[in-house]
């Protein structure tokens, strides 16, 4: 595999850290320890990426690929992403503790501007057998799928080639009116995407 350049690493840190925040909030909303554990794993990934970036950007400066200013900006953006990832881990940590969650936590996350939702894909749903790219769920319903469960397997931050099968469980975030639409699609009550 081709080694990633510094810009690609920064971008990966940014995307991963934002996914982690979404996953962390949904883990406490659904009282789901598996998602919370994934946030922990992703935090390790982000840490490793950050360390790799530090070395890479120093090398780039030495080879004259980047100016010192460019390298500094890359490192600063990445550090902010890394801090965001740490914060997401803190949230997931609350879920992993053996203390029952305070009901207020769920209520606050439910009432926020962006809602999280969990749906089961019924066999009669038109989502079955299609990829996320074909369905264009994000641009048609406003709901972005952040994680899904396929039998015993979990998939986090699925991409457009990810296929949806019957009985899959989707975790998504988006606006309130999009949530209703997605629930109907998943239950097979509506065929209009």
């Amino acid at each position, binding site marked *: 595999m081709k080694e990633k350049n510094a810009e690609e690493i920064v971008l990966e840190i940014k995307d991963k850290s934002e996914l982690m925040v979404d996953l962390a909030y949904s883990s406490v909303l659904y009282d789901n320890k598996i998602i919370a554990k994934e946030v922990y794993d992703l935090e390790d990934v982000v840490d490793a990426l950050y360390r790799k970036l530090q070395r890479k950007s120093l090398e780039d400066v030495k080879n004259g690929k980047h100016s010192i200013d460019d390298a500094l*900006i890359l490192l600063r953006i990445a550090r902010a*992403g890394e801090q965001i990832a740490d914060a997401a881990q803190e949230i997931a940590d609350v879920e992993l503790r053996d203390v029952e969650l*305070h009901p207020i936590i769920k209520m606050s996350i439910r009432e926020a501007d*962006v809602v999280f939702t969990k749906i089961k894909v019924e066999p009669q749903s038109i989502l079955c057998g299609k990829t996320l790219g074909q369905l264009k769920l*994000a641009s048609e319903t*406003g709901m972005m799928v952040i994680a899904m469960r396929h039998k015993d397997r979990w998939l986090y931050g699925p991409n457009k080639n990810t296929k949806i099968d019957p009985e899959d469980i989707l975790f998504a975030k*988006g606006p309130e009116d999009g949530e209703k639409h997605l629930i109907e699609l998943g239950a097979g009550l509506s065929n209009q995407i």
Partner: protein
Amino acid sequence: MTEKKKRSIFGRLQRTPKWKKEEFTELEYEPTSVKELLTEMKDISELIIDLAYSAVLFDSDEIAEEVKFLDVRMDKLNYDIRMMAMMAARTKEDSEQLAGILQIAEAAESISNAAGDIANLLSLKIKTRPIIPKILKKADESLFRIEVSPKSKACNQKIGVLKVESETGMRIIAIRRGDCWIYNPRSDTILKEHDWLIVRGNDEGCIDLNKFLKGELRVLE
């Protein structure tokens, strides 16, 4: 300090930035429910990341200013939620559960600090910045700037009625109208002609929204 620089700062009427006003207001105890505080903190923690990246991407000091304001606001909310939580604790079980709430609040606050750091990149020299758009434009979900054309059906319509987000997946995070800004618009916010929207979403959604706001597409669906 050079004489010229001194003259440009001193002796001139200057508006106090909003974040400074917020920072120096006295912290007063206002009973607010923990739930309301936590909801606001969660909302800010998500909005502020997008705003911070927009500030550096579009080179906007005004958006950076708003990030600073939200960051300071977050400090106050975090202080309030600690006080409210302490007052609510009666038993050991209470405090265990409330500790969880405070931890989430603290995390939301660190997110806003990180966003503040991103927005601070704007204070660097201009010539170093082209690398930022180069990175951010390639993200899964990117930030875009679109103008509302007078020909578009969006003029004088509420965002909630247009269902911008559920039809295109594009989330409007800020609106620029003349010299003013509206951050985190609500569903009853009305779009006007020549508004500049800062939106977040994927490329496909952006193409649709762009056509609609240019007036090439009559309805969003």
